[in-house]
């Protein structure tokens, strides 16, 4: 019996300033394949469906279990992680494209450093005094941990930014992921002492006021992070902070 095969179509671009082309590959089907295995198969035999020799496809991946965030791309038009995209569940031909809201590097690789920069801008850390042994951390109610932990599972994949109508490569909106991180750090007993810095960063251009409440982000998040809840919570914190600053005449 001939092997069962399926088709993968890939949007390729060798460099940001070069032209786009689509390539089609015919791959041998095996059970439990994911999109990463497809890309490895192509690297082993980089011949398109019509037999033309091409090059292995560039893509980002590391953990292969949806915890590092590297492998986000558009799969059949949907922003998601490639490692958890199982061939069995995907409509064929499978269509792979790079995310569009970030600068393209090559093929399926984009540059998401904007997200790391925004984490810096919004002071997303707990300012500790030093790494010396100065005793235990603050106590925390299990209920606070149970709220914080899901937020801290954000893998900086950028899918929530990809689907946001307000995020693009020209305007500075930080996007839902960053706002949700601000909520996380403001929730922590030590982090809360410095929440003003983070809220003020979110009151600048590109901050939370840019959110139009389209609510696409929460549906796109592979980690099920309650992003709309975070947006609402931080929006509330920003308003309170603004009123307090105004009352203090700052």
């Amino acid at each position: 019996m001939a092997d069962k095969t399926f088709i993968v179509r890939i949007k390729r671009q060798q460099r940001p300033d070069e032209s786009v082309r689509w390539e089609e590959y015919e791959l041998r089907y095996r059970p439990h394949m994911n999109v990463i295995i497809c890309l490895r198969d192509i690297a082993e035999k980089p011949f398109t469906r019509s037999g033309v020799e091409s090059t292995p496809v560039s893509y980002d991946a590391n953990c292969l279990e949806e915890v590092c965030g590297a492998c986000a791309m558009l799969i059949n038009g949907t922003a998601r992680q490639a490692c958890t995209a199982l061939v069995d569940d995907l409509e064929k031909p499978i269509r792979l494209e790079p995310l569009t809201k970030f600068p393209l590097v090559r093929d399926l690789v984009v540059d998401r450093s904007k997200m790391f920069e925004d984490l810096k801008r919004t002071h997303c850390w707990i300012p500790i005094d030093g790494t010396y042994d100065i005793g235990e951390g603050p106590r925390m109610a299990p209920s606070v941990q149970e709220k914080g932990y899901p937020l801290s599972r954000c893998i900086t994949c950028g899918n929530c930014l990809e689907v946001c109508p307000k995020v693009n490569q020209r305007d500075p909106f930080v996007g839902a992921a960053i706002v949700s991180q601000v909520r996380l750090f403001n929730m922590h007993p030590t982090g809360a002492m410095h929440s003003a810095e983070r809220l003020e960063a979110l009151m600048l251009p590109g901050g939370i006021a840019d959110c139009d409440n389209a609510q696409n982000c929460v549906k796109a998040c592979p980690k099920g992070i309650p992003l709309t809840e975070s947006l609402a919570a931080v929006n509330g914190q920003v308003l309170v902070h603004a009123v307090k600053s105004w009352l203090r005449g700052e």
Partner: protein
Amino acid sequence: MTQPKIIVVGGGLAGLMATIRVAESGIPVDLFSIVPVKRSHSVCAQGGINAAKNLKGEGDSTWKHFDDTIYGGDFLANQPLVKGMCEAAPAIIDLLDRMGVMFNRTPEGLLDFRRFGGTLYNRTAFAGATTGQQLLYALDEQVRRFESEDKVKKFEGWTFLSVVLDDGGVCRGICGMDLRTMEIRTFPCDAAIFCTGGIGVVFGRSTNSVVCTGSAQSALFQQGVYYANGEFIQVHPTAIPGEDKCRLMSESARGEGGRVWVPKQAGDKRAGKDIPENERFYFLEDWYPKYGNLVPRDVATRAIHKIVFEMKMGLVGEPAVYLDVTHIPRETLDRKLEGILEIYEKFVGVDPREEPMKVFPAMHYTMGGLWVDNQNQATNVPGIYAAGECEYQYHGANRLGANSLVSCIYGGMLAGPAAVRYARGLESGCENVPGAIFERERVRQQDITDALLNQHKGTENPITIWREMGDIMTENVTVIRYNANLQKTLVKLDELSERFTRINLQDRTQWANQTLNFVRELGNMLILARVITMGALARNETRGAHYKPDFPERDDANWLKTTKASYNDGNIQLEYEPVDTSLLQPRERKYTAKA
């Protein structure tokens, strides 16, 4: 001398901790990593981190943690450093807690602890089942803070190729490649700390991440750094087999009460959940009543092999056994294990809260690694330090679960200040080293790349060579080792190395060329594979994860010693040095006793 210059290569837990310690002492750091550090392999760690904080009234102590670690490692680890790690562990947990790690809590708001393999105490702090991710993020955030103060400069998307050695053999800088522009460049420094993680990719499929190739370790080895105990490879008992990677089902599943079993009747075709309790064989509980499902990994892995291959009692249709958590309340599962159950659900498409999981052992961790001294994480080459999974201290012949994260952080804590002390003590810094020394190394590396780019007649596919290497390494150099098969493996590695000279690069572009980088890594992996196999072949005994049926006993008289591999003109040589057993007398390692 002006301000010393320190480079850290690798931004997993070890590298980030080292970076923080150096930056904290006021010295700026250049931090290199292939992936953005927040995507380092440490994110994969699931179950937790050990520290004897004794918050459960069990009478646990750092000495008991030390004893469990040495015993679990079959007495191959040098003891003073391990003792130091166990004593530092409670304060490390406090530090991580202060950094904001969302550890699970008790009703009183204190840290919760669970039990892991190879101990009888609840000693493992955890943040759901994504502890490594949570710890890595906490350190990443601290480093980002230093970055915003210009104390750390990140070079993410760079790969390390080699160190720059002066004529006296002292490390004066590193040579790296920008993975986007493919530019090769040297960076001067007074000391370099390597924290480049695991080597799972050498075995093809493992629980490790894609960048865990050990390429950096191999490159350092080829430049004169010893590689120690390479033959000690941990195979984790419970993973979901996969074609791209084997996904771990953490020991924490058993720590929370998960049970391993097979049907009593071989060939039983019923679904796991339909097999009644009295028709199940809980072989770990039966064979090891005291530790039960929480025997150390080497013991559990061999037991599963025995069930599947010798007793032919594996599940129908595939080499696997059940890992069962269906008896644990859903609420507990979701609060403490969600991260891993979600992995099972997403990749297998079955809800493990309803049906027992099908698992099988997979290559997981290297106890061996770059040789470092017994106090400073310093290698034998002046100016080169190492910490984390890439070095060999702390775990002896077998690592206990949840001990790696703590050893990475502890190693980073030592390496940072030690590198600073060394750099401050140098008579003359890297700024006085002639430019020709750097240029020499850059040209050497550029030539290797150019040779690959210009080879137009190549016929060998890099992925194919890698697959063949991974297959033979997994078959012959993991759970069960026979000398004849190890010899065959060396012959196969010779063949692959020869074919490697005829590699077809497929992609000759000079922009984000991932194939070029992979091929360079593959060349290094082939050498590391040889070091591992030679170490295994030479060691005629059974110790921890190293199991030879033809030599089934531990042989302290001849083999209580550390393997040290060195590289001279293309030849790998093995020598040995004594293990520091000054604190605990070696005793027989046995987990079979009654409860």
